[in-house]
């Protein structure tokens, strides 16, 4: 999507609230993008104190939260592809290589977009994962992908900027594609079973604290989400 399209999209969503003339002030600010602009001027950047990594506040904090999760996923799949489990099929290798590429792309996107506001590179702790075991690797992949989907679904409402909401939307559907694919590798037909969905056919949306309680087990640093918005 071009810069102009991004701006047009934002205009589309907002011009019904605010007259176009007045809205041009926003459009000028936001089409300049990226993540340091507009609604984030009160945001606090990510920071590190001792072993604790603070995600920061506002939209910046939410994006750092996503960056932390993408770092975890990328590191995991890099390891999977570096030392594939025994008996990996050609199809599995192809799918998992693609997923690695996507997660690295997500990680590097957030790093570039957040620039000086980004949290540090995190240190993964994969000591609980047996990378030689298909069951362990795919089970972890499923957990990470489902967790990522619930994280982005829960984080959408925390964002103020429609631009960042769109970016999050562009990523979460790819995470959902991964989740479905990994699930089907483990057990065909479980791409969207009732362990992921509720009776309304809705995926889960989780808060950062719920997500980080699980994700944190795989990260050596302690992640603080205390300054993130809650609504």
């Amino acid at each position, binding site marked *: *999507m071009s*810069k102009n399209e991004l701006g047009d*999209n934002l205009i*589309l*969503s*907002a011009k*019904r*609230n*605010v007259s176009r003339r*007045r809205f041009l*002030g*926003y459009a000028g600010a936001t089409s300049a*993008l*990226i993540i340091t602009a507009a*609604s984030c001027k009160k945001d606090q950047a990510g920071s590190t104190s001792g072993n604790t990594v603070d995600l920061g506040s*506002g939209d910046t904090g939410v994006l750092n939260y996503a960056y932390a999760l993408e770092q975890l996923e990328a590191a995991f799949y890099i390891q999977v592809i570096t030392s594939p489990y025994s008996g990996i099929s050609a199809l599995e290798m192809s*799918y998992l290589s*693609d997923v690695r*590429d*996507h997660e*690295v*792309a*997500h990680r*590097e*996107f957030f790093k*570039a*977009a957040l620039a000086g506001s980004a949290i540090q590179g995190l240190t993964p702790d994969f000591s609980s994962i047996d990378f030689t075991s298909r069951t362990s690797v795919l089970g972890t992949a499923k957990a990470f992908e489902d967790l990522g989907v619930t994280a*982005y*679904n*829960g984080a*959408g*409402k*925390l*964002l*103020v900027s*429609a631009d960042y*909401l*769109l*970016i999050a*939307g*562009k990523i*979460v*559907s*790819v995470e959902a*594609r*991964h*989740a*479905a*694919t990994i699930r089907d590798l483990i057990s*065909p*037909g479980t*791409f*969207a*079973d009732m362990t992921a969905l509720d009776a*309304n*056919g*809705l*995926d889960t*949306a989780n808060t950062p604290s719920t997500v980080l309680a699980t994700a944190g087990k795989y990260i050596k640093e302690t992640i603080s989400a205390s300054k993130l918005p809650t*609504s």
Partner: protein
Amino acid sequence: MNLQNIFSEIENKDPEILERLNTRRNAMRDFAKFSGKVAIASLPFALGSMFKKAYGSPTAPTDIIIDTLNFALTLEFLESNFYIKAVASGVIPAGQATSDLTTIRDHENAHVAFLTSAISAAGGTPVTYTAASFDFTAKGTFPTVFSDYGLLLAVAQTFEDTGVRAYKGQAGNLITNNDYLTAALQIHSVEARHAAHLRAMRAANGSLIPAGVTVKPWITLNQSGIDSPAVQPSYDGEEATSQANVNIIGIGGNSYIDDKAASEAFDEPLTKDQVTAIVTPFFA
């Protein structure tokens, strides 16, 4: 959503808003009064009515939300009716394939019921459609959709990929309401799960896949993976390799992230007009 930030942003861009809202003190007091009276879930509607007062807009946020939810409901009716006929067609192989399409059918039915109820709860009038509302041959473009299993899967894939792009394109319209935004996101990711699964089914089935194209659970460039130009508008624009001015190809010095991977890593939105143009042939 941080309301205080929104107020200060608007004040920044439109200093007159406070006069429009009388005085800030009055505005905030009014808002506090609203807040005291209504359930938390309805707070955004109270905010919407404030904007309506300030700008006299005929399309206040509440109307945008209802319109957006009805647009989503229309697409869910389309999908739901498609899978009801698909599962009943007798062309889907027994076993896993029938089980999978039945699962998807049930989700789409649940989405119809959920959105219908959500729109009513929001004070809107939900749209309604019946089997007779649809023409899944798309005016004769897909005459064998319910007798050719490969074509059935191809149309299903297109509906799901389009649905993902449609929800994505509408998220901004729901940003003023946390509950409806979150619900829409929760449906959006389920459509993506469906799309991924159907794409894998098509890859295994092999029917209607153009020569030299590999169909994966994710969308590569703007490839539909379907041997029909009719579905191309559902994939145009997916070839983007730059996001928010960040070039994704080779990003971070990772040369293995080529244009294909860069396009796959991010799904792209479609506007309401684009989606409407795509689905209109499927309405009788």
